[in-house]
């Protein structure tokens, strides 16, 4: 293990100051300081988010977009203000392009049902990749079943990389939509999304990017990416659960029928004819998760006040450090060794099942994810029933990785 001085050189990022902003990181688990290495499942919230939600609940709550009273106007201003922050955060062209949803899963289902379903004819094709999360597989299976379209799967290689050529080989005259992850949740692979989107666009094929694992680790500019749809969740971005964003290109969203009907998404309703509201409200039926949106807006403000480049550099240093530390354990196999990875490591340990590892590490105060990570086809590909996964955020430390490695060694000794 390297000395503290060497570690400090690697990272100019003030981890200690950032950690102080996350109250939960101060707690103990089983009497040990919490080492929270399950950020890929859900990240923790800073004071800024907790306070924004608290302030809204205590002083401003009312329903939005209706009512002339003060609270309703304040709540509306906060909710729409959060949307403006998200528009800037991903560099959408306008607020028409940022739709608040429950999360990535709902965003993808919305696109599958409202964009793909009216478009797909029997024999058409939807293309995804082998490393997708179930949320980017099942909605397409459902819409393919509804329409008679076919779901094709672009392969990955033994390191967990998806190559542009293997996707291009499957983009055909019947392909109507290409959907893929920006970053794999099970492997950490960063996909070459710019080139993949360009390849689809060149053939007139619509694109959806599942950005759930990407937005916490990299700056996303949807205009620069050129995708038609981009989906992500608030709670992986240090915001609340139950809120997420679907970005869609306005021209496409404009043409899509509403997904759910109800209040807020209409202009006029009579029993003969209903006219729909303008974007983005057309896709936000019913009272939305107002406090969630406000919390997510606060999370984005918090992130933008950080030196994000330094934060991401720190995460990368954590990844390299952890990769070296875990590679040193000869009984440990890292699953997913792509050349470009976000800061997460999936692994298996000879003789110790991931589920047992998870329990033993938890006793040491270390939180990791164990299981199939909602990516059963990835597990099948690597011939493992499950993996353990440590996923890092900018508030994690090298010392926590030392503890991770030591705890894995302890678990291994127990089962050997």
């Amino acid at each position, binding site marked *: 293990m390297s000395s503290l001085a060497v570690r400090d050189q690697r990272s100019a990022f003030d981890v200690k100051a950032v950690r102080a902003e996350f109250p939960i990181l101060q707690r103990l688990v089983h009497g040990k300081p919490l080492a929270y290495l399950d950020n890929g499942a859900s990240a923790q919230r800073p004071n800024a988010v907790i306070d924004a939600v608290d302030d809204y609940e205590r002083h401003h709550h009312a329903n939005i977009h209706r009512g002339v009273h003060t609270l309703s106007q304040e709540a509306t201003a906060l909710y729409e203000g959060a949307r403006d922050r998200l528009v800037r955060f991903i560099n959408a062209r306008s607020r028409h392009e940022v739709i608040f949803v429950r999360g990535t899963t709902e965003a993808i289902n919305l696109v599958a049902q409202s964009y793909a379903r009216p478009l797909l004819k029997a024999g058409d094709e939807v293309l995804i990749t082998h490393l997708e999360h179930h949320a980017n597989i099942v909605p397409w299976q459902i819409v393919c079943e509804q329409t008679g379209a076919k779901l094709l799967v672009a392969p990955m290689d033994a390191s967990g990389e998806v190559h542009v050529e293997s996707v291009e080989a499957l983009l055909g005259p019947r392909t109507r939509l290409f959907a893929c992850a920006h970053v794999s949740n099970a492997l950490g692979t960063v996909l070459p999304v710019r080139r993949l989107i360009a390849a689809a666009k060149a053939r007139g094929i619509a694109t959806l990017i599942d950005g759930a694992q990407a937005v916490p680790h990299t700056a996303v500019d949807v205009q620069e990416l050129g995708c038609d749809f981009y989906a992500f969740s608030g709670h992986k971005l240090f915001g609340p659960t139950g809120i997420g964003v679907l970005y869609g290109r306005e021209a496409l969203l404009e043409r899509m029928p509403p997904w759910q009907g109800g209040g807020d998404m209409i202009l006029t309703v009579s029993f003969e004819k209903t006219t729909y509201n303008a974007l983005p409200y057309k896709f936000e039926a019913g009272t939305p998760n107002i406090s969630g949106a406000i919390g997510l807006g606060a999370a984005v403000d918090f992130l933008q006040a950080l030196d994000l480049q330094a934060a991401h550099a720190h995460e990368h240093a954590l990844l390299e450090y952890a990769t070296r530390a875990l590679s040193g354990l000869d009984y440990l196999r890292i699953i997913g060794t792509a050349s470009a990875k976000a800061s997460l490591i999936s692994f298996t340990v000879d003789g*110790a099942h991931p*589920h*047992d590892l998870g*329990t033993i590490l938890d006793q040491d105060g270390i939180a990791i994810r164990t299981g199939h990570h909602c990516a059963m086809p990835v597990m099948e590909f690597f011939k493992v*029933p499950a993996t353990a996964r440590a996923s890092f955020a900018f508030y994690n430390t090298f010392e926590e990785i030392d503890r991770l490695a030591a705890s894995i060694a302890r678990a291994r000794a*127990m*089962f050997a």
Partner: protein
Amino acid sequence: MELQDLYRDVILDHNRRPRNFGPLEAADVSVEGFNPLCGDRLTLRLRMDGGKIADIRFDGQGCAISTASASLMTEAVKGLTKTQALELFDRVHRLLTDDAASPDDLGKLAALSGVREFPARVKCASLCWHTLASALHSPAAGVLPAVSTE
């Protein structure tokens, strides 16, 4: 809540060297059990003779708790009648979920009592037992539909 209470020596031993592990020739009944949460999978095969479990073997992939539980179970139910085995299932189920349940008279199966302190792991220990119950409740022989803990 102590780790040693969960991973007792008996559990570690049966995980390292599971008993009655592997295929069973001439099985009457075969059932697959699946725990979608963690991906544990086991196949249980039984040979019945005169209303008794003449032989029972399992294979599959699972964590230490699920492997040891299945191994201990096969040892415990071999030779029992269907009714006796189902009674034992009830006792083990109580042991895993009810703090007041006594592990007395359960022999090696008492080692599973540490699991109840770890609620996330109860399904690991109970998967094989649910699978067995499904096999014993089935009126017909053959390959039965898979059992899931969800």
